[in-house]
């Protein structure tokens, strides 16, 4: 296992380097002068020149990259040009709502997908199965923002049960905070649940057709014990993989969800930075998200090796 961790970690280094180069290049992809794009035309030329100097844009590109990397290695991701605060502080402030949203969404998706996926496979071709597969299809084809608006319409506008935007911290306000997170978490969680249901159903069906299941049935085990003891464990391996593969979609979904529900999370910060043309902030946040994404993928890879010993020795 130790060797696997080391190998994976080493393989991450070149990718991380390329990612930093890509994020650095981002600002230079702008057609025209990035400073002109970031600031209004009316802004005085001397102000623009100062910003250009601050960002190092008056230097040759390799000097800029070197300086940027040196700062990066010291943990300095630059400063927002709008509020002048370091990127790290901007992101740090926004982490809590995003993490709470992700945790709640993940919990909802597992609560919905686990029984639905298992029942769909165990009662294949019945109405439960048809419900499960239709739910999965709807969930996969339904864009996040549309589902969000549908939920807002039903539970916020018509029934008036839940708040439709804004954020209250559940760790401080308890129930009130949870209420503010229910609709966003449902939006994100149901989309994820659709993918997990589909994967769980299909991997359960694969496992159900294995010889060891026939043996288990032949020795007289009840169907529920067969499923709990033999099928489910083996069927969970592809689910973990898919959860890992879905991380990117989850983060993208969080961007949209936070935008729709006005949640002050990291996703919302990306959108705001993009529209404020605050390129240093965009660079910093995108880099942090990418690093987070790479590390979570690494964690999933390792988790996968831990669950399925066959992977370790490959």
């Amino acid at each position: 296992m130790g060797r696997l961790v080391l190998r994976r970690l080493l393989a991450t280094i070149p990718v991380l380097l390329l990612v930093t180069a890509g994020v650095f290049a981002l600002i230079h992809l702008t057609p025209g002068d990035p400073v002109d794009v970031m600031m209004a035309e009316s802004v005085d030329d001397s102000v623009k020149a100062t910003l250009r100097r601050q960002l190092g844009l008056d230097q040759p590109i390799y000097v800029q990259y070197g300086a940027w990397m040196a700062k990066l290695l010291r943990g300095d991701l630059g400063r927002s040009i709008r509020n002048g605060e370091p990127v790290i502080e901007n992101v740090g402030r926004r982490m809590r709502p995003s993490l709470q949203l992700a945790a709640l969404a993940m919990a909802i998706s597992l609560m919905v997908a686990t029984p639905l996926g298992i029942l769909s496979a165990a009662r294949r071709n019945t109405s439960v199965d048809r419900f499960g597969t239709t739910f999965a299809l709807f969930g996969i084809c339904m864009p996040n923002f549309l589902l969000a608006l549908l939920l807002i319409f039903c539970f916020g506008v018509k029934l008036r049960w839940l708040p439709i935007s804004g954020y209250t911290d559940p760790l401080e306000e308890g129930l009130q905070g949870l209420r503010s997170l229910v609709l966003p978490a449902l939006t994100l969680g149901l989309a994820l649940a659709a993918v997990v249901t589909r994967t769980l159903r299909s991997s359960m069906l694969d496992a159900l057709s294995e010889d060891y299941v026939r043996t288990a049935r032949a020795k007289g085990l009840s169907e529920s014990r067969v499923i709990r003891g033999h099928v489910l464990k083996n069927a969970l391996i592809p689910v973990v993989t898919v959860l890992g593969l879905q991380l990117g979609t989850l983060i993208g979904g969080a961007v949209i969800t936070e935008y729709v529900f006005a949640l002050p999370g990291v996703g919302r910060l990306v959108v705001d930075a993009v529209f404020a043309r605050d390129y240093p902030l965009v660079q910093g946040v995108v880099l942090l998200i990418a690093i987070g994404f790479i590390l979570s993928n690494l964690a999933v890879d390792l988790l996968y090796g831990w669950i399925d010993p066959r992977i370790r020795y490959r």
Partner: protein
Amino acid sequence: MAGSIRGSGIAEAADTPLASPAPVCGRRWAVLRQAARTRLGPLGVVVMLLAIVVAALAPAISPYDPLKQDLGNALARPDRAHLMGTDNVGRDVLSRMIWGTRVSLMAGFGSVALAMIAGGVLGLLAGYTGGRMDGLVMRLMDAVLSFPPLVLALALGAVLGAGLGGVVVALGVVYTPTFARLMRAQVLTITAREYVEAARALGAPGWRIAWQHVLPNAAAPIVIQASLSVAFAILAEASLSFLGLGIQPPGASWGSMINAGRGYLQQAPWIVFWPGAALFVTVVGLNFMGDAVRDALDPRLRKTR
């Protein structure tokens, strides 16, 4: 598994090369017949054809100018004059939806075509030349895959500037690694086959082997992946337009219409409903079609469940 294409269990399966590559042209009709036999495939094709016809004939069939405002008739309920009602500045929702179809299809097909060409060339280059070039190209693709797709598209869209062109390029970049990986895997399998060895032994130049033997045989999984990616590209374009990148106001796209209508959910839900339904139906249809194409092109992946 960790090295396979992200986000699509289907695409992972497509990673496996075809068992016996038959000549592509001779199989074409058999493939179409097979696609028609799958239960939901024809439905997908109908949706898709309908969308293409609507997009192509937009100027002829849209009852009103999609940009023409009529403030006296804002938020009008659907009636005979405006079958799908009007939006907050009195524009006809049906006309805007029809023009939005164009944007969605152009973005969906444009970005996937771009990704298919770029990814195909890069994958061919990596798989065929091997060595350092292979390592460089594939690490580059890994780096692109290290960004969550929507975040990368958002960042690229931001620097490339709002507008359809920026979105198409941004989504094209996002989907390129998928095709590059697939093409590389195909090339590696195909170049190990006897007929490629035979061609080499006969003295065929490298480009000719690539063009005549490798490309046609690698095409099937690429087509499968493309047909599945279009649906996701259309969804992604709608998401970016919803966030405000993509077609700029007053231009019409499904995503931007939905964003504009979300403030009027209570008074005028139809502003959101119709483009939302169009988007959903198109994506479902494309998924059905993609599944049918996959089943037809690769019998081993045919669903028996």
